[in-house]
């Protein structure tokens, strides 16, 4: 699939790459500088979650093209023991105050859509999406370029 970006998360050095890839893809999709930063930050939180709690996982980032908006979807998956209590993990106040926290609430606030799914036996998948609206000008341009391509 074109434009899909995969980052293997195995160590804290991978977070640097994850942040950079996220920003690059967001920028390619036309997200504003601020939104690209929000996305990169959310990815950082999610990836750290994987490294700290499971040790190994992967990020798959994909663009979504709709007529009135473009989106960037991030699917972070690991094969760990799963989050025993997803509710608690997502509860505000769990992140950051004292210890390491799970980073999920922060990421959720930064993105527009956010879902956590735990596998039946093990494994966790976090899917988060950020959207940007496309204005009239951009849609006209795409129609024109589409005809010319």
């Amino acid at each position, binding site marked *: 699939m074109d434009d899909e970006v995969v980052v293997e998360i195995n160590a804290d050095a991978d977070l640097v790459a994850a942040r950079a890839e996220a920003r690059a893809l967001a920028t*390619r*999709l036309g997200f504003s500088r*601020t939104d690209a930063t929000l996305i990169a930050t959310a990815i950082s939180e999610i990836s750290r979650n994987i490294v700290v709690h499971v040790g190994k996982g992967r990020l798959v980032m994909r663009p979504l093209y709709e007529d009135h908006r473009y989106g960037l979807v991030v699917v972070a998956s690991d094969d760990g023991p799963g989050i025993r209590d997803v509710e608690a993990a997502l509860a505000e106040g769990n992140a950051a105050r004292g210890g390491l926290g799970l980073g999920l609430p922060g990421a959720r606030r930064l993105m527009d859509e956010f879902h956590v799914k735990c596998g039946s036996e093990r494994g966790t998948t976090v899917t988060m999406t950020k959207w940007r609206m496309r204005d009239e*000008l951009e849609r006209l*341009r795409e129609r024109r*370029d*589409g005809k*010319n*391509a």
Partner: protein
Amino acid sequence: MTKEETQLSEPPMQAPAADISLLHELVDYLRQNRTELREEWVRRITDAQLLRVMTPEEIFSEVTAVYDNYVDALETGSIETLQAYARDLSERIIPRGVETHEVLGIVLLLRDVLARSLFVNYQHDADLLGRILDSYEPAANRIAVTVGVSFVDERERVIREQQEAIRELSTPVLQVRDRLLILPIIGMLDAQRARQLTEQLLGAIQANRARVVVIDVTGVAAIDGGVANHLVQTVEAARLMGASAIITGLSSKTAQTLVDLGVDLAMMKTVGDLQGGLEEAERFLDHRTDGTEVTGNGQQS
């Protein structure tokens, strides 16, 4: 960034090898007859009543440049120089009020003038004429598209700039004295506008090295939980950049509503009205007791 890649540079304009010599012959012909072909073109432009905003001298000057670029593009097969020229031309003529149909019109007229001239010149040899046209047509069409698209791109760039300018104007961040900014917010606040305001405010903090910002919401149509959240975030972001924020114009009724909604108003320093807020800000600047100690609830200490 779009689904399909748009590449103006392909397909290449160069014809197969056998026709390269034809192309050279064509280009030489166009160069030798430059004067009269250009004049014919200007006549056609005037007859079609295009480029009326330009003087005859200007038309002639641009026409010459386009003609020469056109022939060069035919010869080299490269449209980069032409593209650059077309963008430059567009930048100059758009503010004058030249419209898209005019630009396309004149390029197509040139194409016609040259094509007819080829017909006249090679009419004695139908086969040669056919091959010359085979060489000429795809190249000429490519050029028309290039110029048209460059013009349209430039127009869109200008429209976008104008949109930006309007947005900026509609929410001014005012500097009233050194280190003090006011952001009066008026009207409806949706998520997009709120984000824009925040970005503008933070940019202004950076540009003006502001230490205090007064955000007046007296004119905001409806302050709900969402708007309040944006305000809270803006205040926090300003503090991270070293500026204290004062919110003014929050009626006690609205404040109560927000508290009921669970918004933590301790996050913001609020004053009843703008005047009071400004006085508070001045006091703060004149007697600053500290830097901006950033706590989770944004209180100054």
